[in-house]
C-alpha cells in the first residue's frame, strides 16, 4: 500500500507559521525512496527544532547507512514549533517526515536520538501528534517500534513507559542488525511482543517491558530482573571498531534553512580517555578509536564536493588529542590553500600547541574563535574532576593566543562540582584577571578580552560522579552572583571580562531526568500535559511547571538530585552495561574525594576501567606515518 504524502494538506498551513522552510524538506543530499520497494522503514527523529536537529551527526549517519540498503528506507522528522503543532492539530495533520512528508505512524520504527534528557517532553508531543499511543503497553502491531538512542539512552528508565526499546552506544551496526531482525519478524508474521523478544534476545537492544523493577520500602531499587527467559540480565553497549570502515556521512545533508552549525563535520576519533570525572561522553564512549589521517582526508574531500560548505569542523571529544593532529592540520591546510576553506577544532585543550594548530587551520579562510575549558576554578577542584591544567598553563596558553592575533577567547567553567566551595568558584575571577593582565602585557595593548562562560554541573549515570549530591539551585545561584561581583570588583579588568551563565534551576530538572528511574515517567507526562515542550529553550522552560508536576504525581525531586548515594545502592541503570566496571567507578569517585588525579590510558598502562575486556575492544590510535598528498589542480571547468 503506497503511503500518500501529507504535503498537499501541510502546504496551506505553511504561510501561517514561523520559518516554514524547516518543514519543506528537499535538503541537498536528502532522498525520498519508493515506499513499496522497501520493507523495513525507519523514521529517525531528533527531538528538537529542525535548526538544532538537522546538523546532528548521529541522525545524518544512520539516515545514510540505512538508505544505502536497497530494501530499507529512512526518513527524518523533527520537533515542530508550538505554532505549527497548533495548526496541525486544527487541520488534523499528523507528525510527518520532512523527506517524503509521510505520517510517522506508518513507519516500522521511530528511532529517537537523545543527546540530552531535555528532549523528553518533545518526544511525547511527537508521539501525540503522530497518533501513536503514548504508552508502549497501549500500542499494537499497527504502530512503530519506538526506539531511543544517543547518550541519554544509557539511562532510559525515566522514559521506559513510552519506549519499546533502547540501543546503547554506536548505532551504525546496530540499526542494520535490527533491520534484519524486523524484516524477518515481518516475514514470519510475528506479533509485536514476539518482534521485541527477538530484538532483546539478539543482544544489544534493551526492551524495558521485559525487566521488572522492585523497590525497597525506603524507595531505593531492590533489583531489576528480566521477566522472560533468554532475555539477558544486562544489556551491553555497541561499539564500532574501525572508523575508516564507516566513513559517514559521505553525503552530508545541506539544509536550505539556517541551522546552528553552518559547516560540514568529520569525526576524527570517537571516545576519550582523558578521564574527566564529570564527563559522561568520555566515560560511555571508550575506548579511543581514531580515524586515520588518510581516512580524514578522504572524508573532507568528498564532503566538501558534496556540500559546498566553506568550513570543516574536525569533531571529537578532544580533537587536539588525535595522534596525528599536526599532520592532519598541515596536510589539510596545504590541500585547501587559496580555496577559502577553513577548518576548525570545536573542542580545544589548554596548551600552546593548540594555538599553532588553530593558526594552521585558519590559514585558508575565516578565523574561528578559541575556547578553553579549565572546567574548575581552583587547582584543588581540578584534581577532584581530573582535569589537570594549572593556572600557569592557562595564562600561558591564552597569552600565546593574544600574541598570535586573537583578541577574544572564551573560558569555560562549571559550577556545582562535588566538594566545591565558594572559594573555588571565586578563583575563576582571579584566573580571568590574570589572563587579561598577562595578555595586556604581552601585546602592549588594552584591546584583549575574555568571556567567562559557566555551566551548571549535573551528575550523570556511568560516571564516577553518579553517586554525588547535586548542588541545590539556590547555592548555585548564590555562587554565580558571588562570582559576578568578584569579576566586577576589580575595575581595572572588569570591562575586559564578559560573564555568561544560566541560573541553577534547569540543571535540577536535567538532574532529575538524568539519574531518575521509571517513577519519573509520570512527571514527564504530567509536564507535557501541562504544556511543557522544548525544555532546552529558556523561553519555553518552566521550572515551576516541573516542580508542580512532581508534586502532583508524588515525586520528591531532591531525593533524586541532591541526595548522595551509597556504594551499595542499586542504581536505575546498573543493568545497562557501558563496559565500565562499577567497582572501578567507585574507586575513581573515592580518588576524586581524595583529590587524586589519574592519567590517560593512552600513555600509561591500563588502569582497569573495565571497558576493553568487557566489550572485547581495544584502543585504536596511530600514528600511521602516512601523509596527505596534494589534490590535483585542474583548470577551472567554467573559465574561458
Amino acid at each position, binding site marked *: 500500500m503506497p503511503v500518500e504524502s501529507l*504535503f498537499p494538506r501541510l*502546504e*496551506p498551513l*505553511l*504561510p*501561517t507559521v514561523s*520559518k*516554514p*522552510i524547516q518543514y*519543506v524538506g*528537499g535538503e*541537498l543530499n536528502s532522498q525520498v525512496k519508493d515506499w513499496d520497494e522497501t520493507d523495513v522503514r525507519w523514521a529517525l527523529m531528533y527531538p528538537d527544532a529542525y535548526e538544532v536537529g538537522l546538523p546532528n551527526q548521529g541522525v545524518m549517519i544512520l539516515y545514510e547507512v540505512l538508505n544505502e540498503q536497497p530494501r530499507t528506507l529512512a526518513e527524518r522528522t523533527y520537533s515542530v514549533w508550538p505554532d505549527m503543532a497548533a495548526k496541525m492539530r486544527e487541520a488534523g495533520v499528523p507528525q510527518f517526515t520532512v523527506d517524503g512528508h509521510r505520517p510517522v505512524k506508518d513507519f516500522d520504527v521511530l528511532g529517537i536520538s537523545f543527546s540530552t534528557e531535555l528532549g523528553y517532553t518533545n518526544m511525547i508531543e511527537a508521539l501525540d501528534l503522530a497518533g501513536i499511543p503514548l504508552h508502549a503497553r497501549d500500542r499494537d502491531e499497527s504502530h512503530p517500534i519506538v526506539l531511543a538512542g544517543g547518550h541519554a539512552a544509557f539511562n532510559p528508565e525515566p522514559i521506559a513507559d513510552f519506549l519499546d526499546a533502547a540501543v546503547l552506544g554506536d548505532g551504525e551496526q546496530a540499526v542494520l542488525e535490527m533491520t534484519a531482525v524486523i524484516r524477518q519478524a515481518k516475514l514470519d508474521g510475528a506479533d509485536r511482543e514476539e518482534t521485541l523478544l527477538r530484538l532483546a534476545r539478539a543482544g544489544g537492544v534493551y526492551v524495558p517491558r521485559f525487566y521488572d523493577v522492585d523497590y525497597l520500602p525506603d524507595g531505593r531499587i531492590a533489583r531489576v530482573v528480566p521477566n522472560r527467559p533468554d532475555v539477558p540480565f544486562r544489556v551491553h553497549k555497541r561499539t564500532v571498531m574501525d572508523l575508516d570502515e564507516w566513513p559517514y556521512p559521505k553525503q552530508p545533508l*545541506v539544509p*536550505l*534553512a*539556517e541551522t546552528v552549525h*553552518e559547516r560540514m563535520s568529520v569525526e576524527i576519533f570517537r571516545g576519550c580517555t582523558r578521564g574527566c570525572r564529570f564527563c559522561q561522553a568520555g566515560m560511555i564512549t571508550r575506548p579511543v578509536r581514531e580515524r586515520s589521517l588518510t581516512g580524514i582526508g578522504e572524508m573532507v574531500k568528498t564532503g*566538501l*564536493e*558534496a*556540500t*559546498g*560548505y*566553506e568550513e570543516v569542523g574536525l569533531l571529537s571529544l578532544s580533537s587536539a588529542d588525535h595522534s596525528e593532529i599536526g599532520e592532519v592540520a598541515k596536510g589539510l591546510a596545504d590541500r585547501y590553500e587559496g580555496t*577559502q576553506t577553513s577548518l576548525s577544532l570545536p573542542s580545544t585543550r589548554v596548551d600552546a600547541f593548540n594555538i599553532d594548530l588553530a593558526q594552521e587551520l585558519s*590559514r585558508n*579562510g*575565516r*578565523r574561528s574563535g578559541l575556547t578553553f575549558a579549565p572546567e574548575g576554578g581552583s587547582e584543588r577542584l581540578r584534581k577532584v574532576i581530573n582535569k589537570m591544567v594549572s593556572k600557569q598553563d592557562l595564562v600561558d596558553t591564552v597569552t600565546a593566543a593574544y600574541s598570535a*592575533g586573537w*583578541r577574544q577567547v572564551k573560558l569555560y567553567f562549571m559550577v556545582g562540582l562535588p566538594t566545591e566551595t565558594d572559594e573555588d568558584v571565586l578563583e575563576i575571577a582571579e584566573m580571568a584577571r590574570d589572563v587579561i593582565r598577562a595578555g595586556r602585557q604581552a601585546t602592549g595593548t588594552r584591546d584583549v578580552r575574555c568571556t567567562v562562560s559557566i555551566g551548571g554541573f549535573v551528575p550523570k549515570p556511568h560516571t564516577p560522579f553518579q553517586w554525588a549530591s547535586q548542588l541545590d539551585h539556590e547555592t548555585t545561584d548564590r555562587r554565580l552572583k558571588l562570582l559576578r561581583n568578584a569579576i566586577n570588583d576589580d575595575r581595572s579588568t572588569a570591562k575586559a571580562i564578559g560573564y555568561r551563565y544560566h541560573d541553577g534551576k534547569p540543571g535540577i530538572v536535567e538532574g532529575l531526568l538524568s539519574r531518575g528511574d521509571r517513577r519519573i515517567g509520570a512527571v514527564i507526562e504530567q509536564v507535557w500535559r501541562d504544556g511543557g515542550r522544548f525544555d532546552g529553550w529558556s523561553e519555553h522552560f518552566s521550572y515551576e511547571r516541573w516542580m508542580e508536576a512532581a508534586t502532583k504525581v508524588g515525586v520528591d525531586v531532591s531525593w533524586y538530585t541532591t541526595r548522595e548515594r551509597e556504594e551499595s545502592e542499586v542504581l536505575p541503570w546498573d543493568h545497562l552495561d557501558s563496559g565500565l566496571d562499577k567497582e572501578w567507578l567507585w574507586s575513581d569517585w573515592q580518588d576524586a574525594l581524595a583529590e587524586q588525579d589519574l592519567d590517560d590510558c593512552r600513555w600509561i598502562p591500563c588502569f582497569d576501567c573495565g571497558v576493553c575486556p568487557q566489550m572485547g575492544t581495544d584502543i585504536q590510535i596511530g600514528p600511521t606515518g602516512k601523509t596527505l598528498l596534494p589534490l590535483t589542480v585542474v583548470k*577551472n*571547468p*567554467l*573559465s*574561458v
Partner: protein
Amino acid sequence: MARNIPSGPPPPPPVQKLRLRYTKRGRLRFTSHRDIARAFERALRRAQVPMAYSAGFSPHPKISWVGAAPTGVASEAEYVEISVAERVDLVRLQQALDESLPAGIDITEVVEAPLGSNLPDRIEASDWSILLPGVSLDTAQQAVSQFLTAAEIPVERLMKQGLRTLDARAAVVRMSAAGDQDCATLSVVVRHVTPAVRPDDVLSGLRSVADLAPPMPPQATRLAQGPLSETGEVSDPLAPDRPSPEGPGATRAGADLEQVAAGSPS
C-alpha cells in the same frame, strides 16, 4: 596593527561581473532571502565558479543582491550580481550553477554587466500575480475597484521595529482581476518605495477597503521587476546589457542564445 592584515597574498581581483536572473518556484517560495543567499554561496562552490573574494580575515565572495521576494512569495524574476576572478563561459556557468541549485531556484538568464552600469537603479517596480483560490472573479473585481478609488489605504505590518503603518494604495500603479467563479487572479504593478509595499500589504488593503477575506491562503508570484514605463508597464532590466545586432556588446546566455548569436555580427 599587524594583526589586522592576514598573512598571505590578497585574493585575486574581480575580472568580470555577471548578472543572473533566477526564479523562486514551488516549495522554494518558503525560503527567506537569507536561505537563498546561503544556498547560492554553496552552489557557487559546488559548481566551481571562480568567485572573487573580499580581502581581510573574513573573506566573502563578491555577491550583491538586487531586492528579494519575501518569504512565502514565489518569483519568476529575481536578480543577483556576482564577480569572478577568472573570465567564465556564460552558458557553461548557467548550466553548472543551475544544476547545483535546488530545483525551484532556476537560473533563467546570465549576462555580463557592462562597466559602470548599475542594476539596482533600473529596478523601479514589480509586476505581481496574486492567485486567490476560493474567491470569485466578481468579488475580486469589486474589491479591486474599491481599492483603486480610495485615496489612501493605511495598513499595518509587523516589522523589526514593531508595528508600522504604511499606505498600500500610493505604491500601486495598476491593478486588475481575471479568473472564474472559483479562483480569481489579481494582476498588480507596485512601485518600489520605502518601506516596500508587498503583496501581503496589498491584500491587507483589499481586506480593509472591501472586506476581501480569501478562504484559502493566496499565492503571490513576482512575474517581473524592472524599469517602469509611463504607461505602467514593467520592462526587462537586463535589456540594456544584451548585445544588440547594431553593435558589439556582452555575450548572453539563455534560452534563445542561438538566435542572439546568429543575429550578432561575428
